[in-house]
């Protein structure tokens, strides 16, 4: 996020939420939004589904899955036409305004209504709210990024924020709500194939030299494979060994049957986790890890706030901290620079290597503070709750770069792109057709989390959300003879799953929605592995699908098949082998 969460409750007077089911996925950020509303702030929500947030909105823009760019260009069109942009900010702190203004000329309210079905009045009203706001903030999530043109979506949102001058002050900004507790930290620590810790490109010799000095090795200069590319790399023999820790890619990755199949071809699969996950069941070696509550360290939340996590209890049996396992393995492989005794030593190494971002964030300071947001270069630096103060951006010129973005559902608007400098464009990879007439879109449920490894082991959570449901609009259901609670089979070109139907207005016509929390019906067997060329993020949010009603007997048959496929019985079997030794202290 460019800005911190408490600023929303305190300063924002217009909040634009797009592609984020905030109330279910980030409930305590939603609470700040409600706090702002109680102060009189206006809420605009763009989402194909009638989420709880959409329900609370002053204006709900029911944008069809995949059409964000048309909507945002439409808002920009009105803001430019009605002179609601911040000319001062645009002149002094941005480059490329004229190009963007020209690019959105075609996106009149009438044209956007034709493309998306959003009523013209609503669009105009939303643009006026946003353009006239003192402090407008944009919150977005995977409904913006999980497309083959996710980068285009994000760029068009930052166009909107910069053009209206909503950057570099409290309560403004472009704010991705990061899904997992430490996805921000994993990126910051260099768990990306093109950058070292601190986002230092591996291709730059100076960056490598910094780490080579401390690590005493020569480092590779070629960027590595990205997760969506690994399946193919295994199948064509380039990758022979994989190491997975604390992830369950067999459930969470797009077109997961393909990846599963690839994993079965590995010469070595090491899985380090706290349960025998669907992925671990395929491993050659499984290493038991300590989990949250059993170890010391830090997490970095979506606001870049580094916070201490602490140990409360001992891990079970022989389970060990992940850092201990990697260090021990490194020593077995004769690497001598990873002999750590405590996470604090590791964190101090990070601070030493990337002082410009983390230098001032010591364990000592974290003892007292409720986290510190990086960049924080020195011990007496307070941290940085919001970025780009005074409109100074992290570009060569210090100005924000505005770039035109185009979208056409059916084909890339290439001629358009040619008429502009630095334009971006997107199209939907797989549109509905006669055979697969629905748009399938995916996400999470409020009470569960991702692949369910953790939440499905909590009884209060399992009680309120015990099973997979497939959301379908009542008009579509009627046409297919489906009633609420009937079993349905949902298929795409990549596979099928079966679950109960939830007949609801939450989804628009011709759209179905479901989650990836349940192996019984894992929607990622259906999603498409078509990725964004810049960020390599897969298109989870749109695929063409068909829905059929099935009998309870057919449902049972599919369930048995999945049970075999995910080796479900193995988890209980292995747990049974080693019941003794619960929570013994270890040294």
């Amino acid at each position, binding site marked *: 996020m460019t800005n911190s969460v408490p600023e929303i409750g305190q300063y924002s007077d217009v909040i634009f939420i797009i592609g984020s089911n905030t109330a279910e996925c980030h409930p305590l950020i939603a609470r700040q939004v409600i706090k702002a509303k109680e102060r009189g702030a206006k809420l605009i929500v763009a989402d194909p589904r009638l989420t709880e947030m959409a329900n609370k909105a002053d204006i709900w823009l029911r944008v069809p899955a995949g059409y964000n760019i048309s909507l945002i260009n439409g808002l920009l069109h009105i803001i430019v036409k009605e002179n609601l942009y911040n000319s001062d900010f645009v002149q002094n702190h941005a480059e490329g305004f004229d190009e963007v203004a020209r690019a959105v000329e075609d996106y009149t309210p009438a044209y956007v209504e034709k493309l998306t079905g959003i009523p013209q009045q609503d669009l105009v009203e939303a643009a006026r709210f946003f353009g006239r706001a003192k402090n407008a903030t944009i919150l977005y999530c995977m409904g913006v990024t999980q497309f083959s043109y996710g980068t285009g979506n994000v760029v068009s949102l930052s166009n909107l924020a910069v053009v209206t001058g909503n950057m570099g002050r409290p309560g403004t900004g472009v704010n991705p709500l990061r899904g997992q507790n430490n996805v921000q930290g994993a990126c910051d620590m260099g768990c990306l194939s093109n950058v070292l810790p601190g986002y230092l490109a591996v291709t730059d010799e100076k960056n490598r030299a910094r780490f080579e000095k401390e690590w005493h090795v020569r480092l590779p200069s070629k960027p590595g494979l990205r997760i969506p590319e690994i399946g193919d790399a295994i199948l064509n023999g380039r990758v022979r060994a994989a190491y997975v820790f604390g992830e369950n890619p067999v459930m969470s990755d797009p077109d997961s049957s393909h990846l599963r199949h690839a994993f079965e071809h590995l010469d070595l699969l090491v899985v380090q986790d706290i349960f025998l996950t669907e992925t671990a069941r395929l491993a050659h070696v499984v290493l038991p890890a300590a989990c949250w509550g059993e170890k010391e360290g*830090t997490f970095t939340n979506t606001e870049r706030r580094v916070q201490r996590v602490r140990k409360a209890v001992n891990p079970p049996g022989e389970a060990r901290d992940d850092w201990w396992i990697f260090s021990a393995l490194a020593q077995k492989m004769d690497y001598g620079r990873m002999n750590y005794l405590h996470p604090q030593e590791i964190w101090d190494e990070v601070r030493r290597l990337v002082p410009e971002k983390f230098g001032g964030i010591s364990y000592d300071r974290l003892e007292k503070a409720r986290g510190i947001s990086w960049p924080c270069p020195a011990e007496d630096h307070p941290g940085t709750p919001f970025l780009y103060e005074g409109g100074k951006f992290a570009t060569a010129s210090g100005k924000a770069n505005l770039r035109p973005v185009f979208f056409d559902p059916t084909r890339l608007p290439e001629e358009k792109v040619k008429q502009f400098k630095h334009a971006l464009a997107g199209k939907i990879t797989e549109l509905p057709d006669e055979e697969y007439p629905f748009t399938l879109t995916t996400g999470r449920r409020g009470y569960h989390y991702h692949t369910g490894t953790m939440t499905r082991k909590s009884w209060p959570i399992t009680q309120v959300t015990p099973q997979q449901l497939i959301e379908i609009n009542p008009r579509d259901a009627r046409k297919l003879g489906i009633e609420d609670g009937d079993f349905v089979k949902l298929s795409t070109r990549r596979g099928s799953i079966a679950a109960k139907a939830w007949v609801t207005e939450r989804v628009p016509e011709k759209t179905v929605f479901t989650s990836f929390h349940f192996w019984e019906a894992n929607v990622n067997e259906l999603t498409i592995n078509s990725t964004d060329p810049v960020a390599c993020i897969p298109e989870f949010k749109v695929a063409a699908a068909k829905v059929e009603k099935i009998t309870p007997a057919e449902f049972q048959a599919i369930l048995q098949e999945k049970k075999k496929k995910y080796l479900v019985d193995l988890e209980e079997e292995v747990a049974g082998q080693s019941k003794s030794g619960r929570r013994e202290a270890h040294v």
Partner: protein
Amino acid sequence: MVSCSEKGRTERVLTVCPYCGTGCGLYLVVEDGRITGVEPDSLHPVNEGELCIKGYFGYQYIEDDRRLRSPLIKKDGKFTPVSWDEALNFAAARLAKIKQESGPDAFALFASARATNEENYVAQKFARAVMGTNNVDHCARL
């Protein structure tokens, strides 16, 4: 620093919720070496004394019977509990062999958005410094 609790004592250990990226502050209530509950941190600027259902109840997996408690090696298609030494020797030998035969880029590491900063740092260091490859990535794209 608060450490493990001892018998017969109740302690509250300040930490951060392990679920979504909001990063709410909370206390783990520990009795006799076991977690018995969760209390929100009222001084945390983001959650200001509140939590959602995942924060309140999501910790139960820690005590679940199905937790892995021993390293396992698949022998003849069956998982067999082994010592740390055996498991690490097995992995180290195979990794070294594959690296020697097919080069560093025959290895790929999937890091974790659930683990700590320190663990992710050490993981990528393992891939880059020990294995010699930039094939390290995680679910930020997913």
